[in-house]
């Protein structure tokens, strides 16, 4: 229901656009009317990869050009109509996406962007070398319709509009599915996504394939409209820039962005060119550039988000009143003072779930983790403590696959798991949270949490159910629809916990979950963790403040300089002179009660 109702603006927009385009009789404006959806589709294709994953592609012209040339060459050499060749162009674009994506996704950030820039420029020269400087679509005088050659140019607009509608629907379907969630998660935090069980490389490859296919198809259609294809006009820098421009102007990471950008910028550019071009040659470039600079400065994420944030702020007073209420039950649901909710069990009993043997890892000369061994038993809470720089987080990174161990073994239920990728370890049942929180800020709590559920769930509905359960377990059900960016530190910590829980892990690795919390807030979180333990979860938790931990954990593992110095029950560990020395220095050892 919600899906269909939110489709309404898109359908209304498309219908209105179609109505306007049918009323245009001037063939030049008809062309402009056709180019708007063309560039919108290309922007949507770019958005699908770069908008959702955050990996900026400067090279989308590569896919666009492949599609354009496929259509032209298909008609010239094999007499294949664009009706057939445009779907083939989509397939070729998809293949190009896969071929380009596979090696290039090894790179990140600027390196990825620059590498992508190289592809269309390289292909451009290949096409010039092949002697395809100028290729035209032959006129078919006998059977024009069969070759997508319409005398009435408005049909091109309608066709482009249909393609745009299809692309929007596809993008929305992706956006709302596990696919889109995975991409958004990658964009906001690739490491967190991987830790949440998302096979980031596989999803990125799927994204670039779909994106390449859309770009290929629209490139093919563009060739039909342009009539003449040159390497510059389909592989050139400006083509790649066009996709970026419309998407960034309108709004990145939303279906509306490229559409808004295209509807405003394309007619603006063409009108400027037509009206002022011959009087002030190049003026269109100047004004166009200025408009883009202004938007980037005033609305760095694009018009769509700016307007949306503005509208949200205006309706904020009423919304705030509604939202402040649920805060109370959350606090009420969780007992403020954590009671020892379960009997301490003697250590050394129960099945070993995770066993670490002689684990070491060095960074150059620094031995971050050396020869660490311990066992984690079912339903145990293990506290890993140690001063700053003791190697606690590195140990977690080794356990969940962010780092490969130098030597040593990690046995999960007796199976060797060291060196596996994070998403594989997540699938195997190791969930984790982060010292520095890694929420997906633009997403709601439930969307944040659902990302973590996909590793276990087969369907989207199942994932939603797992997410709802996980949110309930940490007590955030009342505010599940809030955007992560609006949450307090405590709520974010709980949300991260829920995200880890949604994947139904058997072992939870909690990295300084209490950091940055006030005393009462810390107690609330501790209460939640205690409940999890009571429900049978096995937990390893890092902290460097001991007070809260003493009440929480069954046993401690104390690290200093990467090595285990003490292991044992809380009471014993806190009195151990080596621990006091590591934390406070030698002279405090004398003051310690023995």
């Amino acid at each position, binding site marked *: 229901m919600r899906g269909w109702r939110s489709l309404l603006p898109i359908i209304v927009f498309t219908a209105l656009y179609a109505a306007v385009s049918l009323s245009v009789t*001037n063939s*030049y404006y008809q062309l402009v009317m056709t180019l708007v959806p063309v560039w919108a589709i290309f922007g949507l294709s770019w958005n699908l990869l770069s908008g959702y994953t955050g990996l900026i592609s400067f090279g989308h012209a590569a896919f666009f050009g492949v599609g354009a040339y496929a259509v032209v060459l298909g008609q010239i050499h094999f007499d294949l109509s664009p009706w057939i060749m445009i779907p083939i162009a989509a397939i070729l674009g998809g293949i190009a996406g896969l071929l380009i994506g596979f090696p290039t996704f090894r790179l990140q950030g600027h390196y990825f962007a620059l590498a992508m820039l190289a592809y269309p420029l390289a292909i451009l020269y290949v096409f010039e070398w092949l002697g395809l400087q100028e290729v035209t679509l*032959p006129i078919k005088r006998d059977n024009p319709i069969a070759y997508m050659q319409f005398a009435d140019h408005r049909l091109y607009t309608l066709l482009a509009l249909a393609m745009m509608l299809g692309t929007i629907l596809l993008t929305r379907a992706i956006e709302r599915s596990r696919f889109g969630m995975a991409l958004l998660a990658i964009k906001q935090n690739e490491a967190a996504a991987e830790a949440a069980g998302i096979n980031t490389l596989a999803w990125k490859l799927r994204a670039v394939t779909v994106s390449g296919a859309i770009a290929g198809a629209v490139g093919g259609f563009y060739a039909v409209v342009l009539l*003449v294809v040159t390497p510059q006009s389909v592989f050139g820098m400006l083509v790649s820039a066009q996709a970026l421009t419309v998407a960034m102007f309108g709004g990145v990471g939303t279906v509306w962005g490229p559409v808004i950008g295209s509807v405003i910028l394309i007619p603006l550019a063409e009108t400027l060119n*037509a009206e002022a*071009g011959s009087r002030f*040659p190049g003026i269109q470039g100047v004004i166009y550039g200025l408009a883009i600079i202004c938007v980037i400065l005033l609305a760095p994420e694009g018009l769509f988000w700016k307007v949306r944030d503005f509208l949200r702020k205006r309706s904020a007073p009423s919304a705030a009143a509604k939202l402040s209420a649920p805060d109370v039950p959350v606090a009420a649901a969780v007992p403020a003072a954590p009671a020892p909710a379960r009997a301490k069990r003697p250590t050394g009993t129960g099945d070993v779930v995770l066993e670490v043997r002689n684990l070491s890892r060095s960074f150059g000369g620094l031995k971050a983790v050396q020869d660490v061994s311990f066992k984690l038993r079912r339903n145990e809470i293990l506290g890993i403590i140690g001063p700053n720089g003791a190697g606690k987080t590195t140990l977690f990174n080794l356990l969940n696959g962010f780092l490969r161990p130098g030597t040593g073994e990690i046995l999960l239920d007796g199976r060797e798991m060291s060196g596996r990728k994070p998403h594989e370890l997540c699938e195997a049942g190791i969930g984790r949270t982060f010292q520095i929180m890694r929420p997906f800020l633009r997403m709601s709590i439930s969307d944040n949490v659902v990302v973590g559920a996909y590793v276990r769930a087969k369907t989207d509905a199942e994932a939603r159910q797992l997410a709802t359960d996980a949110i309930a377990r940490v007590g955030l059900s009342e505010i599940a629809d809030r955007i992560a960016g609006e949450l307090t530190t405590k709520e974010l910590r709980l949300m991260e916990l829920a995200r880890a829980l949604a994947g139904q892990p058997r072992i939870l690795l909690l990295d300084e979950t209490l950091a940055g919390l006030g005393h009462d807030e810390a107690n609330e979180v501790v209460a939640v963790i205690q409940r999890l333990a009571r429900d049978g979860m096995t937990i390893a938790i890092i902290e460097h403040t001991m007070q809260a931990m003493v009440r929480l954990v069954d046993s401690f593992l104390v690290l200093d300089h990467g090595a285990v110095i003490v292991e044992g029950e809380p009471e014993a560990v806190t009195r151990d002179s080596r621990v006091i020395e590591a934390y406070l220095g030698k002279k405090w050892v004398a003051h310690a009660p023995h």
Partner: protein
Amino acid sequence: MGQEKIEDNLSGRNSKTSLTRRTVLSGAAAIGLSTVARAQQPAEVKVGLIVPLSGIYTRPGQVMRMGAEMGIEHINAQGGIKSLGGAKMKLVVIDCGDTTEKAKNAAQRMVAQEADLVAATGSYLSSFTLAVTEVTERAELPMLTLSYSDLLTERGFKFIFQTAAPASRQSELGLPELMKLAEAASGKRPKTVAMLMDNTATSVATAKALKEKIFTQEGLQLVVEEVWTPPLSDATPLIQKVRSARPDLLLFMPNAISDAKLGLEKINEFGLGQGKIPTVSFSITIAEPDMLQSVSTDAVQGIMTVVANWGSKGHEALIAELKAKYKEPWMTQNVISTYGDMWLMKAALEQAGKADRLAVAQAFRTMDGGPSKHYPGGQLKFDEKGRRVGAGVVIVQWQSGVPVTVFPSDLALAAPFWPKKA
């Protein structure tokens, strides 16, 4: 709006020069012609000029506009279109920008917004003309062009008319003449040749014809062949190869002025200029006035180029007018061909007897206008492909700082000399 202003300027200029004539004409019309007939005929007939006026090809576009403006002015000064009751020709200028895509969109704009155009000309680069004519063909607007890619007239189009000899034909016509000239001047035929070319469509087409046919036919051995993608960043490696091979003839084929300058500077730096190795080109680039901004007249002395058209014998008055009016030092293909296009349109209008694009197109197709005055060789007649029958080439040679026509002899303004090894 931009176009209107240009038109205003134009008609302003025209009205000053033709004020008295117009009075005379209307007087004549009142006496001689029936008022009914006059009412049916338009007061002016619009023709289009669609050329680059922004971006890196602005300069050739501007020069083409000079030719068109001069043509329109002369035609109107001589009484306009007589078969249309002395209707004036009016120029509509459209900027086709500097990319194929912009050119195509500009053409769309031209046919949409200037529905009463009867013919047009343009668009400098073959790539632009190719795109523009895809639109004009569908709009059934006759389009003259000085572009010479073979492809333009190989698409089975009915509304394109190519006044220049196609690229493949130009090398076929030009190189044998150069060989004859070399033989006559130096007593021996060149035997080895080096070819340095950019990879634009025109150069590729020319090189293909040369390699596949003409070199063999002329007994030339290709000893160096180097291709670059414009813009050329460093000509040293290219020229070094030429120096070590010491060919009898160097074909240097740039299409961007900057590339031409860079190459020639390097040729002189290596001491290969001024006739040490006779240098020949195949486009007007190397003979553009801009060349002299950075290359000395000595450096270009003797260099020849085979082009589709050039200011020649019989155009002296026109060349003088161009110099006086626009401060252009000489008349390139862009001026004379576009000037000639205006006269060609006039002839078609006279023949058609009405200001209608279909009738004008039919007039171009059936025209038999005798020997051509503004294009080299052949006649004012088009074959079924839209190519001008018998279109020839012109060889231009830098002599004392001016590229002058040296071939064919009936158009030559100076005698050619073969640069000799010093």
